[in-house]
C-alpha cells in the first residue's frame, strides 16, 4: 500500500502546513509595504514637480500680457519675456556643445570599445568618470578664466570675455563623458560574431568599426546624442557664470557675445530673488521657463529611452 506524505497529526500534508509561522508572515508583509512606500515616493516627487511647475506657470501665463512673450528681448524687470531670445540662446549653446561633444564622445567611445587594449581601458574609463564627476560650477569658472581668454578670444578676434562660445565649449566638455559612456555601451553590445564575420571576409579593423559596428549600434549612438543634448539644454551653472547677460538680453545668436539661455535666465532671476519679489511677474516667470525646460528635456529623455531599448531588444 502506497504511503502518502503525512503531517503532524497523521493527516495528509497540505499547503497550509508548509506556510511559515504567522508572525514571520506579518513581518514579511510589513517589510514589503515599507519598501513599496519608498518606491512610491518617487512618484510623489514627480507629481510635486509637475504640480508646482504647472500651477505657477499657469499663473504667469494668465497674468502676463501675451504680447510681451514675443518682443525684442528677455528683460524680466521690465516685463519683457521674449521666449525666442532665451530659446535661441539655449540652442546656440547646445549646438556648440554638441559640435564639441559629438566627435570627442563618439571617437573616444569607438576607440575604447574597438581599439584600446584592456589595460588602457581600465585606466582611461575611471579618468573619464572623474571628468564626468567635475561639478558644472567648476567648469563654468574654467570657461570664464581659461576657455574664453585662451581659446575664444585668441581664435575669434573681437570676442567679448563673456561669450556663448566659451560657455558652449565648456558644456560640450561636460557632456562628452556622458555621450562617450552611453555610446561605448552601445558599441560593446554589438555581438562579437558580427565583427568576426567581417574579419573573415578580409575587412580591416577600420572598415569593421565604421561599416559593421557603428551601423549596428546606431540606435545607441542616437540615444547618446539625445541624452547629450538634453543634458546640455538643462545645464545651468556654466551658462550662468560664463555666458554673461545677467540682467537680460536682446535677441542674439552671435556666439562671440554674451547671451541668455533658459537656464541662465532662471539662475539670474533666482540670484536677484529679493528684488524679484517686488517685480510682480519676474518671479512666476521662473516657473514658466522651468516648465518649458522640463517639457523639452522630458521629450528628449523619453525619445532616447526608446532608442536605448531598441539596442537591447535587437541583441
Amino acid at each position, binding site marked *: 500500500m502506497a504511503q502518502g506524505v503525512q503531517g503532524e497529526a497523521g493527516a495528509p500534508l497540505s499547503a497550509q502546513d508548509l506556510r511559515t509561522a504567522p508572525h514571520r508572515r506579518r513581518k514579511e508583509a510589513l517589510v514589503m509595504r515599507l519598501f513599496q512606500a519608498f518606491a512610491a515616493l518617487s*512618484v510623489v516627487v514627480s507629481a510635486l514637480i509637475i504640480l508646482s511647475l504647472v500651477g505657477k506657470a499657469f499663473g504667469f501665463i494668465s497674468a502676463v500680457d501675451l504680447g510681451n512673450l514675443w518682443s525684442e528681448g528677455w528683460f524680466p524687470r521690465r516685463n519683457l519675456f521674449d521666449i525666442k531670445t532665451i530659446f535661441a540662446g539655449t540652442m546656440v549653446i547646445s549646438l556648440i556643445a554638441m559640435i564639441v561633444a559629438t566627435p570627442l564622445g563618439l571617437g573616444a567611445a569607438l576607440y575604447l570599445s574597438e581599439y584600446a587594449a584592456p589595460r588602457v581601458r581600465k585606466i582611461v574609463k575611471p579618468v573619464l568618470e572623474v571628468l564626468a564627476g567635475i561639478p558644472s560650477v567648476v567648469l563654468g569658472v574654467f570657461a570664464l578664466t581659461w576657455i574664453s581668454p585662451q581659446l575664444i578670444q585668441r581664435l575669434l578676434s573681437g570676442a567679448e570675455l563673456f561669450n556663448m562660445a566659451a560657455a558652449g565649449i565648456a558644456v560640450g566638455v561636460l557632456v562628452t563623458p556622458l555621450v562617450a559612456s552611453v555610446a561605448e555601451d552601445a558599441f560593446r553590445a554589438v555581438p562579437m560574431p558580427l565583427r568576426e564575420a567581417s574579419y573573415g571576409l578580409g575587412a580591416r579593423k577600420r572598415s569593421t568599426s565604421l561599416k559593421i559596428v557603428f551601423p549596428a549600434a546606431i540606435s545607441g549612438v542616437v540615444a547618446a546624442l539625445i541624452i547629450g543634448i538634453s543634458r546640455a539644454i538643462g545645464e545651468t551653472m556654466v551658462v550662468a557664470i560664463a555666458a554673461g547677460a545677467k540682467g537680460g538680453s536682446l535677441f542674439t545668436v552671435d556666439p562671440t557675445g554674451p547671451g541668455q539661455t533658459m537656464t541662465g535666465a532662471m539662475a539670474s532671476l533666482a540670484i536677484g530673488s529679493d528684488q524679484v519679489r517686488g517685480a510682480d511677474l519676474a518671479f512666476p516667470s521662473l516657473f514658466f521657463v522651468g516648465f518649458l525646460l522640463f517639457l523639452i528635456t522630458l521629450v528628449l529623455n523619453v525619445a532616447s529611452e526608446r532608442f536605448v531599448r531598441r539596442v537591447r531588444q535587437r541583441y
Partner: protein
Amino acid sequence: MATTVTGPSPTDVVLKSLRGSKVDVKSRLFEAALLFALSISLLFLVVLLADVLVGGIGVFTDRGMGFLTADLSSLPNIAGVSQGIVGSFLMMFFVVGLAFPSGIGAAIYLEEYAKDTPLNRFLIVNIRNLAGVPSIVFGLLGLAIFVQALEGFTGGRSMIAGGITLAVLVLPIVIITASEALRAVPESIREAGFGVGATRWEVVRHHVLPIAAPGILTGTVLSLSRALGETAPIVLVGAVTGFLATGDQSFAEQLRGPFVALPTTIFNWASLPQAEFRANTKAAIIVLLGVILVANALAIFLRNRYERKW
C-alpha cells in the same frame, strides 16, 4: 631528432604575405583620429586641473589653512570658505539620512519584490525620467514646496530646504545604482535561501544585501559627491543671498536659517568683479574638487576591489 626552427616562424610568414608590405595609412590615420578624440577630452581635464592649481595654490601658500577656517568677507584677503564647508557638510546629512534609506528601499522593492505589472513598469519609467530632469528644475521644486509651501517647517530659504532639495535630487540616482548592484547578485543565491525555507526578506537581509553592499556603497558615494557639487538647485532655494547663520542660536535655528554651501561660494565669488577674488575662487575649487575627487576615487577603488564576477 628534433628539428630546430630558424628564421621567421610560419605564422609570421603567412601574416606578412597576407598583409603585404604596404603600411595601411588610412587605417593608421583613423586610429590616430579616434585616439586624438579621447586625448582631447583627457587634455581638457589636465588643463582644468592645472589652471585651478596654478590659480589657487597661492592662497594656500600665503594663508595656509587660514583660508579653510576664515568666514565669508567682502575683503578678498581675509575671506574664507569655513561657512561653505560647514553648510555643505550639514546638507550632506539630509542626503545621507533621507535619500539613502528611501532610495535603497525603493531599489529593494523594484528588484526583489515587484512583479512585472504595468504599475511597477510605470514606477521604473518614472524613476528613469526623474534622473534625466535638469537639476535646476529640482531647485524650482524646492522653491515651490520646501521654501514656500512648507515654510512653517523649513523656515523658508533655509538649510533644511536646501538639504531636502539635494536629497530629492539624488534619490533617482541612488535608486538606479542600488538596483544595478542588486541585479548583479545571481539568482542562485536567492534560490538557495528560499530552498532552506527563508522568507523573501530574510533572503534579502542575510544574502542579497551583504553581497550587493559594495556596489550599493559605490553608488551612494558617487551620488553624495554629485550632491556636493550641485549648485543650481540650491542657488534657486536661496543659498547665494544668505550667509550661514552661526553663533549664539541653537542648532535647530541654524538649520532653519539662511545658508551657504561650498559650490555656491564658488559661484558667488566667480561673479564678483574684483580680480583678487579670482584666486579665492580657484582656491575654493581646489577644496571642492579635493573632496569630490577623493570621494570618487574611493568609490571607484571600492568597486574595483570588491567587484565579483559570477
